[in-house]
């Protein structure tokens, strides 16, 4: 189990226990509410992860680093940002991949742009996000994160 999982489970179980001691009925109501919104999200989640799984099978680290090399220039930056924006990876996968990309010849700005967008810009979530909030809200959040990635690339270009 990851650190993340241990923290969240201890927190959830402790609070549930405290809640149960304080008020049994309220706790059961809360659990029911939580389960309900989980069941609502699940049908969206599973096909989405299937889709991401396929993407990640095709877009392998070797493939990505071949696109993001030292000579790839602006095109490499654009490709890094695009691949990052479409796919989603948890940080425990993304960071080691970033290292692997750098070691196999990826350039810093290209890889940095990929790393930022792969975590913060989630175009695969776009439909779900629009449904929860609105299309405008989904565009806005992704656009701000994308701008953040560009800022990171610019700083990395100056520093490295």
């Amino acid at each position: 189990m990851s650190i993340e999982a241990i923290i969240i489970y201890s927190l959830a179980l402790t609070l549930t226990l405290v809640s149960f001691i304080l008020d049994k009925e309220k706790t059961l109501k809360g659990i029911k509410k939580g389960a309900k919104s989980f069941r609502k999200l699940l049908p969206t989640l599973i096909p989405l992860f299937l889709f991401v799984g396929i993407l990640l099978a095709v877009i392998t680290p070797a493939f990505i680093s071949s696109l993001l090399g030292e000579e790839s220039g602006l095109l490499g930056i654009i490709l890094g940002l695009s691949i990052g924006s479409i796919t989603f990876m948890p940080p425990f996968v993304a960071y080691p991949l970033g290292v692997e990309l750098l070691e196999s010849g990826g350039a810093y700005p290209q890889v940095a742009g990929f790393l930022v967008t792969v975590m913060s810009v989630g175009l695969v979530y776009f439909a779900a996000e629009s449904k929860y909030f609105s299309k405008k809200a989904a565009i806005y959040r992704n656009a701000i994160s994308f701008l953040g990635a560009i800022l990171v690339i610019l700083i990395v270009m100056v520093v490295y």
Partner: protein
Amino acid sequence: MKTIIKNNKFLFLSIFLLILISFIDLSLTYQALTNAGNQILSMLIIVPPIFLLIGLFDVWVPRETIIKLMGEHSGIQGMALAFLLGGFSAGPTIAAFPIAMIMLKKGAKYSNVLFFLMVWSSLKLPILFYQVTTIGLSLSVIINTAMVFIFILGAVIADKVFTKEEKQAFERKAQNIE
């Protein structure tokens, strides 16, 4: 039929792609299914306790409290709280959407909720150490400071970009979600 496809576009697209890559290389199909299985498994591990917390939050925390802490007049304190909640996140961004909805339902300001979502997506405090040990200190510092800066800016500007009606529409959606 059309609506079934429209509502399950990722499912149909995935099945189509799976068939397509099977013709190219069967090991790709196997890799894709393993990837998907692993991701779904790790999600099924991390997401249920989040929803348990959402449920408890809903029954225990009164609306007045959230309005005071993260509402229209919560100022910097509201943003700081959004930052902490987002930073101590676990799980994919999509798991943060229902959390954001419950915040809106309890009267949190939209720009604070948006800030929470953005922080959740890319600034994960519990694994800061992991981040530094993998991609290095300087790259971590650049990414984290640049993103905090742009997220604060994004949240402040959002307050002007979204009209009062749009913000009210978010809140109405949040009220009706259950």
